[in-house]
């Protein structure tokens, strides 16, 4: 067990001696007969509890503790005082300069209890500090880990996709029907794995990154996202996009999360089209006012069964026969929750789906 180290400060030598006599068996005791001497001891020794008399020439107990609090915040401070010092005492307590005060003359049991309690506080605070440092370290490690994992997983995958690109350029891709089929299968597997890695990272980042407020230009965001997701989905060239952005007001919000939300919904609208539909259509409307941005994304695709509608936002829920991780809409919901936004969905099987999102404007 650690021996508790106590510093006792009093200008009267008699008090110092009687404190020592009472407590020297229980604690490791240091004494000082002035504030200056006490600061000197604190600069050399780590003590757990500091007890000081209030009335001392040169520097009062409260004055001493104000200094101690600034220079050595860890030791717990106990003030000894007479009833006449109430004014100074009230201030010191309100400023958080002292942990406890004890009226003079002190009695042994009361003072001993106070020292014990003070040490408990000291220990708890220190443990908390250590835990905090430990957590900070784990957190940093986790961030580094995620970064390296995302690279270690994505790098070879990007290489594989690179080989496929090269095969296309060298005309190996279309050499035979079988070859074409195998290359396309491989490409699709790689793309799917890539999507899974990206969405897992997105989810992770969403749960950890703090919100950043920036100006959002919805027209640009939506056009960029459509370009990205058209590239990622073969066959999406035939889809017609009707985009109507009505943004007369400045919108300030978290662009990173808004892109996650809209990106996932646009990607779904592209993916879940009816293959036989001739006029594939995705309509995106944005209305911005001072308070909120309302985005609706309407497609004429496969639609969602009524039974499924209230489950689509669950983690790992996915409709049978459909590819995907079951993470997309879950990530959308989590990201919207961070923005204090709302989402609703209406859908009719075989005729399409309409998502409506409301994101508060922080401008």
């Amino acid at each position, binding site marked *: 067990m650690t021996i508790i180290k106590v510093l006792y400060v009093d200008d009267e030598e008699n008090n110092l001696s009687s404190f020592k006599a009472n407590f020297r068996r229980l604690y490791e005791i240091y004494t000082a007969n002035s504030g200056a001497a006490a600061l000197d001891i604190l600069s050399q020794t780590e003590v757990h509890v500091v007890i000081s008399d209030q009335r001392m020439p040169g520097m009062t107990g409260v004055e001493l503790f104000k200094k101690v609090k600034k220079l050595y915040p860890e030791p717990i401070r106990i003030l000894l005082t007479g009833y006449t010092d109430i004014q100074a005492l009230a201030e010191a307590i309100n400023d958080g300069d002292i942990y406890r005060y004890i009226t003079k003359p002190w009695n042994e049991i009361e003072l001993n209890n106070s020292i014990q309690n003070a040490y408990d506080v000291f220990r708890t605070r220190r443990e908390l500090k250590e835990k905090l440092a430990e957590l900070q370290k784990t957190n940093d490690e986790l961030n580094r880990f995620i*970064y390296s994992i*995302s*690279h270690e997983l*994505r*790098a*070879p*995958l*990007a*290489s594989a*996709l*690179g*080989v*496929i*690109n*090269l095969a296309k*350029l*060298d005309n190996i891709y279309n050499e035979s029907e079988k070859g074409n089929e195998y290359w396309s299968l491989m490409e699709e597997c790689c793309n799917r794995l890539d999507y899974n890695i990206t969405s897992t990272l997105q989810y992770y980042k969403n749960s950890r990154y703090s919100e950043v407020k920036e100006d959002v230009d919805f027209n640009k965001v939506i056009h960029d996202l459509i370009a990205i997701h058209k590239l990622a989905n073969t066959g999406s060239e035939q889809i017609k996009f009707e985009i109507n952005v009505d943004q007369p007001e400045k919108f300030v919000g978290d662009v990173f999360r808004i892109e996650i939300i809209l990106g996932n919904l646009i990607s779904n609208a592209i993916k879940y089209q009816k293959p036989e539909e001739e006029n594939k259509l995705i309509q995106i409307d944005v209305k911005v006012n001072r308070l909120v941005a309302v985005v609706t994304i309407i497609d004429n695709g496969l639609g969602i069964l009524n039974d499924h509608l209230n489950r689509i936002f669950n983690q790992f829920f996915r409709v049978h026969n459909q590819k995907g991780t079951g993470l997309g809409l879950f990530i959308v919901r989590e990201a919207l929750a961070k923005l204090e936004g709302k989402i609703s969905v209406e859908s009719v099987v075989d005729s399409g789906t309409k998502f409506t999102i409301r994101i508060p404007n922080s401008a």
Partner: protein
Amino acid sequence: MPLKAHTPNLLIIVDDSSFDLRINSGIASHTKLFKQILCFPSAEEALDFLSENLDNREVFPHLILLDIQMPSMNGFDFMKRYNKFPDSFMEQSDVIMLSSTDDLVDITKVDVDKNIKRLLKKPLQIEELKGAAQELYTID
């Protein structure tokens, strides 16, 4: 706006992955924009080559495709030394960074360094490489 340089003589690819050197030099040769392609498996070797050929006219103008994540000396370490080359060198040399992640920290670092012309994501797409080269050079 500085005048665009003529068709680059050289494409220099720096990547620790022998796969990616093979793939990206393959893709680059399909662009038919470069007279010659040189591959280096580490940042150190590429820097050695560049410093030894500071006065060799045949090395200029050139474009460098630089991978970010490499052991011992990564893409940003490369840039620290690259940025100390003389102005006459810089006028005829361009750098495009390649990364397999879209890590925000990397993107911010690329934004800060004015000598990095672009950040492209792996896998390298031929259209993106062509587009970037057409922005930097007048292609005959």
